[in-house]
């Protein structure tokens, strides 16, 4: 079918798809700071704004740090807030990422995954956002421009209902700058899907309540328990929202996506743009009679542990492709998956491959080779550097 004939189709990069999503969500406030390769998101939004297509209060402060500070306080004042960053910018925000979660600020941010310096690089790598895994932000990893657009819209629904900040990540260039036809949903449909943000508590002169004052040990602990309770609800919320979005658009999403995993002898587990390559490799291998499937982890935080165990129960071999390297640990998804699967009676053997670190190219053929190399090998606890 000719996709361009469908309603509201535009050829968009992943970044511009995100800008479109932001526009459709009608954020009240958007603090933005430029950084390669996020900058096209900012520029498209400021362009929409200049043309009067977005009524958002735009701030362009001196740093990602101030941008996030403004996001948090705006959110607590009752505003729907959007921002975007990448790599160094996200790392600069680290302190405030924690602060945002503690403040229960329902911010939505797009992070364009890029190698963190040093040395300097501008390439696809997920260490920047994965290293924020303890900040409490909900993290989604997107494979394509369309998914990035859909994910930003769904992220607002999830963030605002659960009361936690949410990050939609997509890989530098492979998604951020790759063009594909993207369906832009109707504004009216999005408005209906995403009602006006109206938090129960906010900085309200009519109420006068304050947030963030120093408190005692037990109350601090209790705040963490409350946060844990909210985060425990995220997975169900992701499912509910993803299904609802699917009914409207025909594109359903969940925390995980199982692709041709039935009867698979090996399942490749990965996130982000790597999923597209793996999908292609799986198709080829299936044509060649190899029973290989893909498990795409879309929601990395909170990690959908039970769903992962269910998805991989009875699978003999799992191969994790990590486009990140946590120094001293290895692939982050590898380590987390092993922990999740630990103790399963019928758990798989788990291989961890450090694949495409720093944006190094990984082709369908390379994946085919890795499957052959690791299908019958004895797994090692450490992630393996592969080419």
């Amino acid at each position, binding site marked *: 079918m000719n996709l361009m004939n469908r309603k509201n189709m535009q050829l968009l990069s992943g970044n511009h798809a995100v800008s479109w999503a932001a526009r459709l969500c009608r954020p009240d406030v958007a603090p933005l700071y430029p950084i390669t390769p996020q900058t096209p998101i900012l520029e498209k939004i400021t362009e929409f704004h200049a043309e009067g297509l977005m009524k958002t209060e735009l701030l362009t402060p001196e740093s990602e740090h101030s941008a996030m500070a403004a996001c948090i306080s705006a959110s607590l004042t009752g505003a729907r807030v959007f921002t975007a960053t990448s790599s160094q910018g996200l790392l600069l925000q680290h302190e405030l990422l924690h602060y945002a979660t*503690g*403040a*229960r600020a329902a911010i939505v941010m797009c992070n364009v995954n890029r190698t963190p310096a040093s040395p300097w690089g501008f390439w696809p790598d997920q260490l920047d956002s994965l290293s924020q895994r303890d900040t409490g932000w909900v993290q989604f990893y997107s494979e394509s421009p369309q998914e990035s657009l859909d994910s930003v819209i769904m992220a607002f629904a999830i963030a605002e*209902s*659960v*009361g936690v900040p949410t990050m939609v990540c997509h890989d530098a260039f492979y998604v951020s700058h790759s063009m594909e036809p993207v369906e832009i949903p109707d504004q009216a449909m999005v408005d209906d899907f995403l009602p006006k943000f109206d*938090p*129960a*508590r906010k900085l309200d002169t009519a109420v006068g*309540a*304050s*947030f*963030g*004052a120093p*408190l005692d040990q037990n*109350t601090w602990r*209790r*705040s963490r328990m*409350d*946060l844990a*309770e*909210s985060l425990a*609800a995220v997975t169900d*919320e992701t499912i509910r929202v993803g299904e609802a979005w699917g009914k409207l658009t025909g594109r359903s999403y969940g925390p995980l996506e199982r692709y041709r995993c039935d009867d698979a002898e090996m399942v490749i587990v990965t996130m982000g743009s790597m999923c597209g390559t793996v999908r292609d490799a799986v198709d080829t291998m299936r044509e060649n009679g190899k029973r290989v499937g893909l498990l795409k982890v879309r929601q990395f935080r909170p990690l959908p542990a039970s769903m992962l165990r269910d998805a991989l129960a009875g699978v003999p071999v799992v191969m994790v492709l990590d486009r990140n390297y946590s120094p001293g640990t290895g692939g982050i998804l590898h380590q987390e998956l092993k922990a999740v699967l630990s103790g399963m009676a019928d758990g798989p053997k788990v291989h961890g491959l450090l694949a495409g670190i720093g944006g190094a190219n990984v082709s369908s053929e390379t994946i085919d080779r890795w499957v052959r190399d690791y299908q019958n090998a004895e797994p090692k606890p450490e992630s393996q550097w592969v080419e």
Partner: protein
Amino acid sequence: MNKPQSPLWTNSTSEARKTGTWRSALPDYQNIPSPCLGACPVDGEIATWLRQVTQIDHYGAWLTLMENNPFPAIAGRICHHPCQTACNRVQLDETVGICSLERFVGDKAITEGWSIPKPEVERTESIAIIGGGPAGLSAAYQLRRRGYQVTIYESREQLGGLLRYGIPAYRLDNSIVDAEVGRITDLGVKVHLGVEIMNSAALAKLKEDYSAVFLATGASRPKALPGLDYSQPYVQDSADFLAITNGGKTCELGENLLVIGGGSAAMDVARTARRLGRHVTVLTLESDENLPAQRTEVDEAREENVEFICGAMLKDVNSTKDGLILTCARVDFQPGAAKGQFTTTQIEGSEFELRVDAIIPAIGQDADLARWQDVVPGDKGLIDTDQSWRTQTEGIFAAGDVASMARFVTEAVGQAKHAAVAIARYVSPDEAKDPPPLLAEAKFNVINTAYHSPDARHNQENLKVEVRLQSFDEVQIALSAEQAIAEAGRCFSCGTCIDCDNCYLYCPDMAISKLEGGGYVVNLDFCKGCGLCVAECPTGSIHMQEDLPS
């Protein structure tokens, strides 16, 4: 889902926390006397009425003044104002012109015709007052307003004593005396004029007829200058001179007059004589800087071309057909420890001559005690009294110049006020006591001068000398209302709360509340005892007291 977000929003005010437990000291609001009050012979609440002037509450100011002194218009003209000498403001710029303000209020009362409120109760006890001068009238006023039946016996034809007969009109016009004395008699005081209680028997009779007797005959006998023959026509005592001239009669002494003495009476004589066209020389034992008269009187006398020869004495008088040739000599004057005490040593070879037509000695007056010696004994020229102005005879009291060497009008008024309280207590033991002795005075160091900008005194202006010498018009021109309000505003109100709100507005803990009708209260729940309210009190009327947790 729409789970309520974080519970970590505040839900109450900090008032739940009682930070008053931190405190070890607590502010205490207690007015303490200002130095002017301490110095005032009538215990005038000066800071209070000055404040009322600034608030344009002139009637209130007058009532406050009248509490202690029925003569504000008079005192405002002639008081020796020890209040001003004591005023803390001199350490910032100049003292407050209290006297001129008292005159302002007193004059306002006369102009407006304000009268003294009638006594709230009438009492049957009767008091005889002998002498209708400042002391007698002050006592009459204080007793009558408490409801006692008061009768004044005055030897002269009109009430007022020194005020009427001893002070010239250019300082105190009789119309002022009439107004302020008249207000007292209007209260219902019986007055017998031209009646003298000549002897002990007459005094004893009065004591039988009345519940109590108050002696206030003043000092009516001139001191005699040794060696001067008072019987000569060229000698006239100052009291006679002033009584004659104040009565409108002229002076029949020659053109050139010598006044002997350096006190107020001497100045009054000299300046009166100048107004009568005489050439006047004042001869004083005291050196210029030690003259007992008020400095303004001396200065104004000099302006009026009175000549002064200070530190000299008269040695001999030689009467010739062309006038008197006086032999005088310079002396070394040394003031003594107490007021009025001094030593003089004639300087060898310092004799000089003066030529005048007449001599008016003005060296003071003594009380006439001999006539009552059998009933109220006394020595050293005064009737013996105790601190409450009781004589040695029960039921008889005495104050003013007859019982004190203080010799100032307002001293007499103040003594008579205290005597009146003692008399009231004597005839009616249920009367309130005299208030307890005053606490320590508010010193300059308790005043936070940050709130008081330097500001020169608004002085009364004087008539021009040429005008003065041609009439007995009042020399000092009263302050305008604007000047008076501005001048009263210079008062520090030392030790007196003026409801300025500094304590309330400076408290970092909102622990001080304003009371309806004035004043403040400290909230013990929240006062941390920092003392900022005390430090920033512009008047020094708050004090820290230890307040340790019990």
